[in-house]
């Protein structure tokens, strides 16, 4: 055995290995080639076994050649390995292609009802101005619902609140959220900024714009100098928040429990003020009633009208929701047809 023979063997081994590597077709075959050539019992090792027969001065030279061959085979394995991996991955990815235009897997088809959602929207606006939420009973006593709000039993204004009575003497289904004013005043001291959402009831036949059950939000603010100017400022903010920038109108109204009383209009959300059937051609839509809390009501609330004054307002939640969402019929709300509800996503 001499150096030339051995290095010739090594070069042949290299050439054979490189060819086999280049033509190997899958990672398993490549793995086998690695073992065949570079493994502990592989061909390279076998060739080097002959090194012992060489003269000592040739051994380093053969070692260098063997290294060279080993590195070349390793490099070829790596290159081919990367190539094959790329091919395999490409095949897998190609086989995994989907029609990306297919619809997705549906999640979370729940919806929230527009009534509580509108209450939330209202509470959010007034919450920014320090109004906190209270709730009162729906089965209310006659005194709080009427007399304490300055509506005497035979007051002609009682016609404004057709009432459902219950079989508990002295009780009725509250006709408005206004009795909550009394309850808040009796339970807390000024400064008061309260918001009272809730369900109300009236003896009223059902049609597209009336129902015997409906929802209101009442507001109450009482302090030493709270005036109509504060009311107007707040209501303007409220209207802008809920209906966008549009004109508002503050005009006289009538409620027994406020004096002076106010009706609050916004420019028609349908026609923008030009006049259309939705606004009876006036260009305006009334969204709430308000006024300065009547001294009789303040006193029933335990508040001295000489020291404190304030305002109250009340609005129909359905009315606000109708205008915001263009709901055509009040009956939609309590009917709960999912074709209606699921539009509120």
């Amino acid at each position: 055995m001499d150096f030339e023979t051995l290095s010739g063997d090594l070069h042949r081994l290299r050439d054979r290995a490189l060819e086999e590597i280049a033509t190997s077709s899958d990672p398993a075959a490549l793995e086998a080639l690695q073992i065949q050539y570079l493994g502990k019992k592989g061909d390279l090792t076998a060739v080097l076994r002959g090194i012992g027969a060489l003269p000592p001065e040739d051994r380093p030279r053969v070692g260098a050649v063997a290294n060279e061959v080993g590195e070349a085979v390793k490099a070829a394995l790596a290159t081919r390995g990367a190539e094959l991996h790329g091919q395999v991955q490409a095949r897998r990815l190609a086989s995994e292609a989907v029609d990306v235009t297919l619809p997705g897997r549906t999640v979370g088809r729940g919806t929230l009802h527009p009534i509580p959602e509108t209450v939330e929207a209202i509470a959010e606006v007034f919450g920014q101005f320090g109004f906190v939420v209270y709730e009162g009973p729906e089965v209310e006593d006659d005194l709080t619902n009427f007399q304490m709000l300055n509506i005497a039993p035979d007051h002609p204004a009682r016609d404004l609140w057709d009432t459902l009575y219950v079989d508990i003497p002295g009780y009725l289904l509250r006709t408005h959220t206004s009795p909550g004013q009394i309850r808040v005043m009796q339970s807390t001291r000024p400064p008061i900024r309260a918001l009272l959402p809730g369900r109300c009831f009236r003896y009223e036949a059902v049609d597209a714009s009336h129902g015997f059950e409906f929802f209101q939000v009442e507001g109450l603010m009482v302090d030493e100098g709270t005036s109509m100017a504060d009311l107007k400022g707040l209501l303007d903010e409220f209207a802008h928040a809920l209906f966008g920038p549009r004109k508002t109108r503050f005009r006289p109204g009538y409620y027994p429990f406020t004096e002076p009383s106010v009706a609050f209009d916004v420019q028609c959300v349908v026609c923008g003020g030009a006049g259309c059937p939705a606004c009876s051609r006036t260009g305006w839509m009334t969204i709430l009633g308000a006024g300065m809390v009547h001294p009789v009501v303040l006193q029933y609330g335990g508040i001295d009208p000489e020291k404190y004054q304030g305002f109250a307002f009340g609005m129909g939640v359905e009315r606000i929701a109708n205008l915001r969402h263009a709901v055509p019929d009040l009956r939609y709300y309590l009917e709960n047809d999912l074709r209606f509800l699921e539009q509120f996503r």
Partner: protein
Amino acid sequence: MRVPLSWLRDYVDIQQTPEQLAERLTLLGMEVQGLEQWGADWRSVVVGELLTVEKHPRADRLHLTTVNIGSGEPLHIVCGANNIAPGQRVPVALPGAVLPGDRRIERTEKMGIASEGMLCSGDELHITSDAEGILILPPETTLGVQLSDLYGDVVLDVDVKPNRGDALCLIGLAREVAAATGATVRWPDIAVREGDDPVSAHLRVEVREPELCTRFVGRWISGVKIGPSPDRIQMRLQAAGMRPVSNVVDASNYVMLELGKPTHTFNGAAVRDGTIIVRRATPGESLETLDHVQRELTPDTLIIADPHGPIGIAGVMGGADSEIADDTTDIAIESAIFDPVSIRRTGHRYALRSEASLRFEKGQEFQLARIAADRVAQLTLAWSGGVCARGRIDTAPDEPAAARLAFRPARVRKLSGAEVSAPEQRDLLRRVGVETEENGASVQIQVAVAPQPLRVDAGEEEVLVAVVPTWRRDLAIEADVAEEVARVRGYETTPAHLPDTLMPAYRPSPLAVRNMLRSTLAGAGLSEVVTHALVAPESEPRLRWPSDDDLTGVETPESGSLITVTNPLSSQHSVMRRHLAASLIDVLALNERQGRGDVAIFEVGKGYGRVDGRSREWTRLGILLSGNAQPPSWNRADRQYDLDDAKGIVELLAKRLGLPAPVYRADDRGFPFHPGRALVATSIADHEAVVGRVAELHPDVLEQRDLRSQRVIVAELAIRGLDAGVPARVHVEPIPRFPEVERDLAVVVGEAVDAATVSATISRNAGELLRGLRLFDLYRGAPLAASEKSLAYRLVFGARARTLTEAEVDEAVARVQAGLKSELGANLRS
């Protein structure tokens, strides 16, 4: 109130367009809700002159006419009326005309003769109530002009608020117009030409209830001739929404619309003994009213009577026997002031609300009793002839002076927030007829009147005294003056600014927990519903939803009784619900009818009940699941909702509230539940709790309600904090620093042992090292016996401060095994 503008112009000059006037009135608080073009529905109706009137050759009751309409050839028109003669000017509906009620006029043939249009009666045009004869127009009327140009009008529909009874009339609205525009109100000249014999020769009046009838003014007219009112008057009444009846009745109605004072005219012959008595009805008395209904009179009803019995219900409706008839010659005019409350109650009792009673209810200016009596007499004489007896009967001729109301201009400013000086306030008040005086001496201020009167001493503050016109019965307290000032000045001049005063203390929103759970449920795929609180009385008995007696851990109403509405609108909504389940089933039924069977809904709603004679309200969460949990889809198998979905939702809610996993207890009561698929879920911690029923409905319920759904899952949960609560804070546990050890156990038990018992037994025996326990498999079948099942649990062990040894875990598992064996007779399967 309907206000024809042409009539309103009798009392005040109006420079504005109708639209401008409507806006001014609205901004003054007299909301104009509509502007109606009166006469807009007389299209192609023109003034014509009758040239010839001849008998129809083939029909006795028809006439052939030729009519000149001012241009073109005369028209040939067949007419059935008998009051026509050549030379008259009449309304002619041309072919193509459309009359009120959408009646179309075309060229027709009547008994063989062509008719090129129609001559119109007042009734056909809705101008007068005469349906018999053709409307004969004044001879000076211009030929050919459109009738709408002659008699067209604009009618304002004004919403007069209940406190402003004084404005429920033309004079009252003329005052408001004057306040808005600065014009002057013109009263009609009211003067009665009287005869010689005194009224006392014909009429005596005895008021036995002076509290309820504070004034009665009577007049007597002899020799009237009943007939229609002048056309012009009939047109006015029609435009104002009141049907013309006869000249005498119309005079009374005209005055009510003009002055706001209801009066009544009796057939003088029907007032026996010429004596009117105002008294309460006596038991057993009855009266046939003008609407020809026989009414039993209750003893608290104020009536107008003669010595022989009732002839009218005071202020509400007259009696049929004393009604003005065609042959009436003498009339008695009643112009009285009645107690508003009494009239209101009477109107309600007999379900009779007339234009008159609506005005009486709001209170009447005392002076008007006299003025209206005179005005009715004056108009009756003008329209019906006759002679008015001299003088009036008047039971209370002393008329009160104007009331005086002191106010502090500074307080008016403080309420409105507008800088309005005292002189400006005085000017503004003067525009609505309120004069003011300066006040020297200190004076009491009326801050409030009944039912909580308050008078305070003005002290050193500047005070003015308002002299309140007698018609303004609504101005009683200082705040009323403030409104009047603000109203006349214009609310639009009120400044707007945001409050800059102290904020109230923090208060958690009672909606916080509710909203958190609502959004959680919507996120979990459920749709929120809001249903009626008023339900049908059979709704709950039919469903037999169990009472809350066996629920513990949250406040549950002791099984209260149903609250019933005593005056329901419909039997379908006459009791207050105690539970949500029936309402949710109704929603399912409705959606099924719309072809929608996949329903997953929830409601946060109240239950109501009577407990110890008092009403109580509580808030609950109701859930209903039915149909597909996952709709059929190309990329996922569909799946029906079942009990586990509802339980999963309860578990999610418990987690959201920071509560331990709910414990389930079987409820095998049967109807309304599936006897093997109903449970009570309980999850309780220190401050929070979720307790309630979760069940699949019994098939009989589905059948009873005609539901197509095979399985309907319903839950009703009581949740502490749903009424008012604060979401629980999260307390973080340190992340374990030492590894946890998992062991799986397959527990074989008899079918009778439920999973809750097995897991409770495991937890109890495992000791404090057990960190987690989860059921991951349930198996039945070989090699198990038919009466057995295998429950596979994964147990997770761990300790905070060290790594567990195998021996410790083995020991815990051995304890669990022993416990399961001894307590439940369970074996472990490997």
